């Protein structure tokens, strides 16, 4: 049973570039711009795939690969330029639709408003109202105008309505960054519940870890075309290899002056057993090896490594600069290893860059700088919710041990 079918779907956007009108009649100019300066941009080209009932399919790809266009087409916000999409059943997107709220109306009135915009009938909303309010944890505020709500309350209510849609096919965007941790937990619980009840799910995301956990099949998009379809693990590693390519072309602001008296020659990753790998896992050990060649003896240098997420944000940075130990390089080749007992990065694909600097040198000058020249995939390991994994140990204090612990603590206090 096929729930979703894309047949040769293409989507073209017309991009009009606003030209500086050099005098003349502004109206005529506008028309000219309109006629001549349309550039065609194909966001999707001949995309063809099917989703079976009960299947969870992930769609991944770089920014601009066409993910959000697929999302828009599926939710019928825009129409394809050619081709056909068949949807069998009630499709709804689990998105935060607080934007459909009106500030002057109360929470209750907004539930009706937003609910009916999302396609619920009034009877249906009345039936679900109590549950919606409970899910959003807004019981005592439901008759307050939403303009008095905090942003968190606003978002919770919006999301709660969407979570009650009960669709046949669920469309998931990167929505999980909604509300606080406890609320996120609820949302994830709701999604896995839908998956358990064999709803068809389409998940569009950058978060490879989440895609791997949720999806049976993954579609990799590249420049508006389907690059490959396959199992989650297979496609994600393919995506990761693809990610290496555009990295080299990225132009970002680095140090202006590179003395190049020493150069970074390679970087590689090793797991706990010292075996070379292309991926790490959250919460597990990882070793990063940087090879370098010093063309002369240099004193007091520092090595640094940068981890960038797919949206080019610096997520993490390790450096020897703050260490008490001093590094002096002798002429010749060498290796520096960074040992990381438990990787804090969340699952995903990271671009890794490295640099050698003279300690205390002003920013803007370096000895060598290799910007995002290697890719690290982080698999879900001891993955937790939140921004990063925090290494921690734990100890249980039950009723019996409680006294002991307290004694210990008191002792310690005394000792200090």
């Amino acid at each position: 049973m096929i729930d979703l079918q894309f047949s040769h779907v293409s989507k073209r956007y017309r991009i009009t570039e606003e030209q500086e009108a050099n005098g003349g009649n502004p109206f005529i100019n506008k028309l000219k711009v309109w006629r001549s300066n349309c550039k065609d941009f194909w966001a999707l080209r001949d995309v063809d795939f099917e989703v079976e009932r009960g299947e969870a399919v992930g769609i991944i790809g770089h920014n601009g690969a066409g993910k959000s266009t697929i999302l828009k087409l599926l939710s019928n916000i825009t129409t394809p330029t050619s081709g056909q999409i068949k949807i069998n059943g009630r499709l709804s997107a689990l998105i935060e639709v607080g934007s459909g709220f009106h500030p002057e109306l109360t929470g209750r009135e907004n539930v009706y408003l937003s609910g009916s915009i999302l396609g619920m009938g009034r009877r249906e909303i009345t039936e679900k109202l109590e549950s919606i309010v409970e899910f959003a944890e807004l019981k005592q505020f439901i008759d307050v105008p939403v303009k008095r709500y905090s942003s968190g309350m606003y978002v919770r209510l919006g999301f709660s309505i969407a979570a009650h849609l009960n669709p046949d096919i669920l469309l998931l965007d990167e929505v999980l960054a909604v509300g606080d941790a406890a609320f996120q937990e609820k949302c994830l619980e709701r999604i896995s519940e839908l998956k358990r009840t064999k709803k068809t799910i389409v998940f569009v995301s950058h978060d490879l870890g989440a895609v791997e956990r949720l999806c049976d099949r993954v579609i990799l998009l590249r420049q508006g075309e389907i690059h490959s379809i396959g199992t989650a693990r297979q496609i994600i590693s393919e995506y990761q290899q693809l990610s290496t390519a555009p990295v080299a072309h990225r132009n970002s602001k680095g140090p202006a002056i590179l003395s190049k008296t020493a150069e970074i020659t390679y970087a590689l990753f090793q797991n706990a057993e010292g075996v070379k790998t292309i991926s790490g896992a959250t919460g597990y050990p990882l070793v990063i090896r940087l090879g370098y060649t010093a063309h002369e003896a240099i004193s007091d240098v520092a090595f640094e490594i940068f981890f960038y997420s797919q949206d080019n944000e610096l997520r993490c940075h390790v450096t020897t600069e703050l260490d008490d130990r001093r590094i002096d390089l002798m002429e010749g080749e060498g290796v520096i290893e960074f040992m990381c007992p438990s990787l804090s990065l969340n699952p995903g694909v990271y671009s890794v860059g490295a640099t050698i600097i003279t300690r205390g040198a002003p920013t803007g000058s370096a000895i060598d700088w290799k910007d995002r020249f290697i890719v690290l995939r982080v698999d879900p390991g001891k993955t937790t919710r939140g921004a990063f994994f925090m290494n921690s140990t734990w100890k249980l204090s039950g009723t019996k041990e409680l006294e002991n612990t307290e004694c210990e603590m008191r002792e310690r206090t005394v000792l200090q």
Partner: protein
Amino acid sequence: MAVNSAINRTEKPTATLPRMITVIEPPALRLQDLLNNILKLVRYRDLIYTLSVHRIKVRYKQSVLGVSWALVQPVALMLIYTLIFSFIARIKTDGVPYALFAYTALLPWLFFSTAVTNATNGLVSHAQLITKVYFPREILPLTYVCAAFFDFLIASSVFIGLMIYYRVQISWAMLYVIPIVVLMVMFTTAVSLFFSATQVRFRDIGVAMPLLLQLWMFATPVVYPLSAVPARIRNIYDLNPMVGFIEGFRQVMLSRQPPNPNLLAVAGLVSLVLLVFSYIYFKRVEANVADVI
């Protein structure tokens, strides 16, 4: 886990219901699609209702006079026009008291102008919603027409008061007001759909709206009687459907005569053609409105 049970409790098994098949395709001009779109509107009737009520609520929330604003506007205009056109300009109204004469026309005219003014911005002001959720977009301008119609009904109460005050006799001919209002709502919907869709690409429409409506009002017998219009321009003048509606309204309510059939037929025909054309045009724009807006 408490969360799950909270949601499950109200969920009914939907597996037995037949699934609806949606096909999303490039826009095409087909009669079948047009009919489907109208059927879809029926399915979305709850949204039309909720949004219309919402428009009315929001407009009058946090205002002291509340819904009575729907009365203040026509009554104030009636007083001003009576002052200007009756006391100062001394327009002849065929024996009808000017206040009553003006209000009879202001009532339908204000419905039209309020609906069109608000509906024109209907799509653009909901850009955020349009780029996030699907629903038939014509609902947005339609709900403004509904809200204006609500105001029209409220303002009618003053009209009834005026009729009692001026001792206008009740007659069966007054029932003709129903088809006139139906046709006028059709025409208003057509104009609203057309302008709101055009506004998406050309924001000039919204800016020009007050001026356009002002001109339109003077091209319609609101402040003067139709009999004052020179006969040689009547052929063109009568093509404006609002002429037929407002003159019909006056005839039915004040002269207790059936409306002029020719005038109303022209207005009705223009309305119908324009409604079909506007709806097709609107649906065409709707297909890619999220990319342009």
